[in-house]
């Protein structure tokens, strides 16, 4: 409302100024030639000054004076503008001024954002708490922690906030700081490992594996840490070790433990992989390389069955993409790997055959495909 009022006042001010200017104008008494004459007279004076100072020779001055004088005389002969000067008071000008809002309003309505408030940073940070402004709150804590990096409380807030906002890399750093500042607990170590893993798209990094191992050392019973240790073993290709750990975890878990589904799911997968006779080194939590952060995050919140389904849809999507664009050699290799991870050896060998047929003119790609097939034990 206030903004609308301001706009109206601004428009009125502009129209008013223009109308007043038109009204108060008087027909100039000077004619156009008078302006020319003023210049020519000034040129004559200048000549006089220059001559008096000896800057130009009298002869030069005389010649120039003749010329300027001739121009001055010419102005007398010149026909004055045939159109008489008029002064149509205000009416025309005012009418035109009314056109201004007609141009401005639609343009502003099209491009303006009258409902968007200003968001200056300092004020936003000040009112972050009152407005429940989550990113601003984090920024405030970040700013404070930059000055007092030993403030464990700040890192606590940040670590959980980052996890919520899917900023896994930042979260891992925040957990690392908590651990460094004395909170060297099994929970924190596990969470840090989880953040590192999520940040890496589901693949457990050496750092993360170390963190899980350390956590289990502190609290050998912690189920989450044990789960990840098993997962790390699986990704490292130590399938028997992984199976033992997972089974032990299953046996230690109460019947109503929420994580039983996930553990069971990994056990099933393990069996599938074993049955297929392959030890895919890249088998991971997500399995498919390169899921987006969003997808990884979604996978985290799913039940094990749903997760498997989601991975399947992603693989199907990749297969479809390759149908449309079969030239993507890397895509084919990814698809073949993914099928193997899902334990579908038949699909994998089918994909391999299609790819071989398509790339029969490209020896390098064929070589790469053959190497992959050998590595994955695809018939």
């Amino acid at each position, binding site marked *: 409302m206030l903004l609308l009022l301001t706009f109206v006042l601004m428009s009125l001010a502009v129209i008013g100024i223009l109308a007043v200017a038109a009204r108060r104008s008087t027909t100039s008494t000077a004619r156009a030639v008078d302006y020319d004459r003023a210049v020519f007279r000034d040129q004559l004076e200048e000549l006089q000054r220059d001559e008096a100072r000896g800057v130009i020779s009298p002869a030069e001055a005389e010649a120039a004076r003749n010329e300027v004088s001739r121009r001055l005389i010419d102005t007398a002969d010149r026909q004055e503008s045939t159109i008489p*000067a008029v002064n149509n008071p205000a009416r025309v000008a005012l009418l035109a001024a009314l056109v201004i809002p007609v*141009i401005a309003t639609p343009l502003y309505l099209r491009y303006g954002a009258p409902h968007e408030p200003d968001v200056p940073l300092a004020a936003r940070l000040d009112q972050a708490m009152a407005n429940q402004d989550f990113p601003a709150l984090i920024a405030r804590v970040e700013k404070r922690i930059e000055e007092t990096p030993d403030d464990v409380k700040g890192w606590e807030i940040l670590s959980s906030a980052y996890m919520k906002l899917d900023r896994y890399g930042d979260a891992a750093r925040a957990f690392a700081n908590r651990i460094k500042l004395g909170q060297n607990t099994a929970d924190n170590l596990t969470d840090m490992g989880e953040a590192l893993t999520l940040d890496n798209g589901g693949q457990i990094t050496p750092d993360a594996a170390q963190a899980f191992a350390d956590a289990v050392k502190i609290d050998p019973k912690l189920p989450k840490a044990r789960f990840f240790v098993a997962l790390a073993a699986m990704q490292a290709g130590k399938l028997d070790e992984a199976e033992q750990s997972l089974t032990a975890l299953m046996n230690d878990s109460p019947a109503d433990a929420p994580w039983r589904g996930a553990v069971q799911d990994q056990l099933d997968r393990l069996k599938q992989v074993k049955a297929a006779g392959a030890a895919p080194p890249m088998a991971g939590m997500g399995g498919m390389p390169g899921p987006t952060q969003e997808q990884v995050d979604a996978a985290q919140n799913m039940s094990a069955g749903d997760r498997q389904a989601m991975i399947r849809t992603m693989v199907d999507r990749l297969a479809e993409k390759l149908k449309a664009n079969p030239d993507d050699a890397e895509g084919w290799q990814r698809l073949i790997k993914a099928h193997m991870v899902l334990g579908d050896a038949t699909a994998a060998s089918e994909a391999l055959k299609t790819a071989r047929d398509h790339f029969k003119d490209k020896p390098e790609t064929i070589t790469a495909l053959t190497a992959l097939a050998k590595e994955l034990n695809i018939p």
Partner: protein
Amino acid sequence: MIVEIGHFALVLALAVAAYQFAVNLYGAHRNDAGLMAAGRMAALTQAVLIGLAFFVLMHAYVVSDFSVENVFRNSHSAKPLLYKVSGVWGNHEGSMLLWVFILALFGGAVALFGRNLPPQLKARVLGVQGSVGLAFLLFVVLTSNPFTRLSPAPIEGQGLNPILQDPALAFHPPFLYSGYVGLSVAFAFAVAALIEGKVDAAWARWVRPWTLASWTFLTIGIAMGSWWAYYELGWGGFWFWDPVENASLMPWLVATALIHSAIVVEKRNALKIWTLLLSIFAFSLSLLGTFLVRSGILTSVHAFAVDPDRGFFILAILTVFIGGSLTLFAIRAPRLKAGGLFAPVSREGALVVNNLILCAAAAAVFVGTLYPLALETLNGAKITVGAPYFNLTFGPLMIPLLLLVPLGPMLTWKRASLTAVGRRLWLVAVMALAIGLAVLVMTVRGPWFAALGVGVGAWLILGALWELSERLGAGRVPLAAAWARFRGLPRAAMGMTLAHAGLGLALIGIFGVSFWRVENIVAMKPGDVASIGAYTVTFIGETPLKGPNYTGVSGKFDLKRDGALVTTLVSEKREFKPRGMPTTEVGLYQTVAGDVYLAMGDAAMNGGRSVRMYYNPLASFIWWGAAIMFLGGLLSLTDRRFRVGAPRRAAAPAFSASEGSAA
């Protein structure tokens, strides 16, 4: 709310520009004082409104309001205040807003200070200015709106390109734009004269201060850009024949031609049609420059295709204004009365040669800049036209022009005698020749081009000073009288002396750096010693660096000459926070004789640092020369003849003593 007020002010300014365009031209046609008065006020109102929008955007930058997309993309809360402010024009949208703001300021200045202009001429000038403003405001609002909002607002911005975070570059665009846009006034005067069918000595006097002002701004703007490239890019050069640089050089060359040809119109009522054409060309080239820089066509013809809206919009503006004004010229120019006659050897003749050479030079730059673009558009071939082309075309054109510079002011109008000029200038010629020869002898195996450059530079400086001393009557009149003459000298004459001498100075610097530079690129460990020119450089060591929005390393170097410590130079490698982009801060030791220029490179394999060292002889002459040219322009602008007042009353007959020029 503040942001939206700025946006509304911008849109309102667009409407006012449309009003200014229509009311002024119609009012002048009808000779209607009321309409013309409203049109005049519209020019002022437009300037105030765009100013409001501009300062609102600046405010958003200063308070880091990231709900404005433009601020989010180009600012960061940790940036120093200066760069928050300069960040406003460090990006496409903001710089276009600055462009229209300066355009409106020039329009407002014509409305405010143009009291000595005949009302109809003034109204037509303001009308044409309004049309340019309208076109560019449409461009800003429709395709490059700086007030686009983001919701929800991000908490932190993406930062200004760190290479632009530099004081010289912070102020380079406003000056350069003032030069570009100032030429719109000359253009508007030319179109107004074509509409009226009248161009004469008085017209030339009215248009001259505006042309001079834009030439002055262009000169300092280009010099600042070159200075920035010199010490920020870290490669020791000052001019790269880059299309962006060429885009500013072309209008400068034509504007230089224009200020000279306007003298002929003012003094002799000749070269009138040519001067009109030059005014159109000068502004056309600055429009072209804007198009080249702003459409993205320079990065690549393909980048242009990515955002065709902007490119085609500017192309349309270009077509309408250049095509329209040239058509008008074709129709009206034949009806204009031709001016006075003059012999080939005369001041006019010399100025014609000046104009021809400058235009040919501009054409050479034009071809070199646009040919690769045209070729790439036509058949996709990528070629680079670099320094060798420009040295072969631009250089040989400019040398004869430079040789003529001291002669021009000595020639008399209408008909001059070369022998008379020779008699006055032979001493200067001998001195310049002697200096050139001395340089050649001193640098036995040195490139003779450098000696040529120094000789020509000396010829320009001494010629300018000689002309001044002749005017003062030095040697002929007592010192006190000469001093009195000096004080009474028209400021325009002083301005010319400074501009010509400054050009000579800059020339010496350009030749010095180009032909005598010494470079030494080495890998150094702390304690290592290298030599550059007459100096030795000792690498002391490097320390980590933490600035407000960057981190990096800073290397210290002791600079010694003949074993004595001269100074300690510091060169930095910075990495800027939001984008992780590295920049180099150059260690620079400047003396009259030359600059020691030291830039730290990347860490070398063996734990050392690669260090680029240059000795650039006479480099500071370039910028001193440009600064003196700038001063010359400013001084000329204050000449009293540009302040001829408006006639008050025309009741008295033409030749009465009632003076109208005293105000």
